[in-house]
């Protein structure tokens, strides 16, 4: 018995699985590659949604999953699909969801803008209450580059570097019909506030300029950026309030710099969102009646019919990018075997809609700069 064991031991040579001719070395087998790069959207729920981050995840296969910066730099691509003054749509290929989400969060909450914060109301006899009117004024987007201004903290005096002053004075005369107060009635005051602060100091001489609510040392329209284009709300037809006969609104609004984190009025984007590129794959040949049925099921016309001649038809995937993941094509019996809906995990279709202060491509560049600044801050804290 021992002799037989020894013979068998000598015959068994050590060989590695990599010596077999048909095992691809340095690459993952296709089913693992599918798991690593695609989210499979099944009928009930998506699977493989978490990206495989650990650098040694495929170490036993000889594949290095670590972040190699040169690999990232070579594979990363940006393709712009649409770019206008107000919105843009572009594709980012080769990046991970964590970073794409970081950009989205910064676009919504951490890019500074100018918005009306303090409203000094001299007279308001309209039906809209003071605080409601002030809230509405705060939400009006102002068309000015926020990078030209500084933040104002509580101890600072409002001056020309951190405040923009607007005036609104509308009156509806008795006997005339009701009027609508629109945002074009907001007039920019480049010289600062005109409302005079009541000062208790009797000793101050009457010859000096009366103190107002802001202290502008020079007029804002002497600055080159504002010399020829006055600061105004971006959209001049926003309804602020409505006045009946005999009602009047007289107020002054001060706009300061802030971030969306504090209040949504300071968010520079109407919204910014991303989605992963959908991939629709036909696992089997879908012919004739089934093909017609498949094409009619899809509400966004992802599928097309291809004529094969002799009256035979076949379904093809024509516009996978339009797929909204409604899963109509895999509802019903046996359709899951024929159609597979997946998402490509590192291809993001970003859409940014700006409210008008800055064009959307500038907004994205600023958002990336802010993420860099955050990293820099962490590095300096650690050193």
């Amino acid at each position: 018995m021992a002799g037989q064991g020894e013979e068998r031991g000598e015959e068994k040579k050590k060989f590695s699985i990599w010596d077999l001719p048909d095992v691809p070395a340095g690459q993952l087998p296709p089913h693992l590659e599918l798991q690593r790069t695609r989210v499979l959207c099944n009928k009930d729920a998506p699977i493989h949604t978490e990206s495989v981050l650990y650098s040694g995840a495929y170490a036993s296969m000889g594949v290095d999953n670590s972040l190699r910066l040169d690999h990232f730099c070579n594979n990363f691509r940006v393709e712009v699909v649409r770019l206008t003054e107000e919105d843009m749509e572009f594709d980012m290929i080769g990046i991970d969801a964590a970073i794409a989400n970081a950009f989205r969060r910064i676009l919504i909450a951490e890019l500074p803008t100018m918005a009306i914060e303090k409203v000094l109301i001299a007279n308001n006899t309209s039906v809209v209450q003071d605080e409601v009117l002030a809230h509405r004024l705060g939400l009006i987007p102002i068309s000015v580059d926020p990078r030209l201004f500084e933040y104002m903290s509580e101890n600072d005096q409002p001056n020309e570097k951190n405040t923009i002053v607007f005036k609104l004075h509308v009156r509806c005369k008795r006997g005339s019909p009701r009027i609508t107060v629109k945002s074009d009635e907001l007039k920019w005051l480049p010289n600062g506030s005109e409302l005079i602060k009541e000062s208790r100091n009797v000793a101050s001489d009457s010859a000096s300029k009366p103190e107002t609510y802001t202290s502008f040392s020079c007029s804002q329209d002497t600055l080159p950026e504002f010399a020829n284009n006055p600061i105004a709300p971006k959209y001049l037809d926003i309804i602020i309030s409505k006045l009946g006969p005999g009602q009047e609104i007289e107020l002054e609004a001060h706009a300061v710099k802030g971030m969306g984190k504090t209040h949504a009025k300071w968010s520079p984007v109407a919204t910014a969102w991303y989605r992963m590129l959908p991939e629709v794959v036909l696992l089997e040949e879908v012919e004739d009646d089934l093909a017609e049925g498949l094409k009619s099921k899809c509400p966004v016309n992802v599928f097309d019919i291809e004529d094969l001649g002799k009256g035979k038809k076949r379904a093809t995937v024509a516009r996978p990018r339009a797929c909204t993941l409604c899963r109509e094509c895999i509802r019903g019996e046996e359709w899951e075997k024929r159609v597979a809906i997946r998402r490509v995990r590192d291809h993001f279709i970003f859409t940014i809609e700006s409210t008008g202060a800055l064009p959307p491509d500038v907004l994205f560049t600023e958002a990336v700069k802010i993420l860099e600044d955050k990293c820099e801050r962490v590095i300096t804290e650690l050193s």
Partner: protein
Amino acid sequence: MEHGSFTDNSAATFSLTEEDHTLANAVRFTLNQDPRVTFCGYSIPHPSNARVNIRVQTTGDPAREVLKDACQDLMLMCRHVRSSFDKAVEDFKASNAVKAMKIDSQDSDLEESE
């Protein structure tokens, strides 16, 4: 800020103030991809306080250095993203300008021929 042990500096928890998921998730992604890291994760102790705890455990290198390298990698990735994006926007604007010029010249040709 760094809560670790004096004797073993390969494992530590870094507590960052004024940060949230935006930076923490991105740093966690780059940390995970580093082969020297055995464990990394982040948690937010309470959503009302802007504080993030990032835990890093390595195979021997000081955790502080590994975190610094991860932040450095993230910065380089951001710079690359920014330059690629700027270039793509420029190319798009240039190709649109060319298309607009072509359409204009086609229109003017039509007008002339009429």
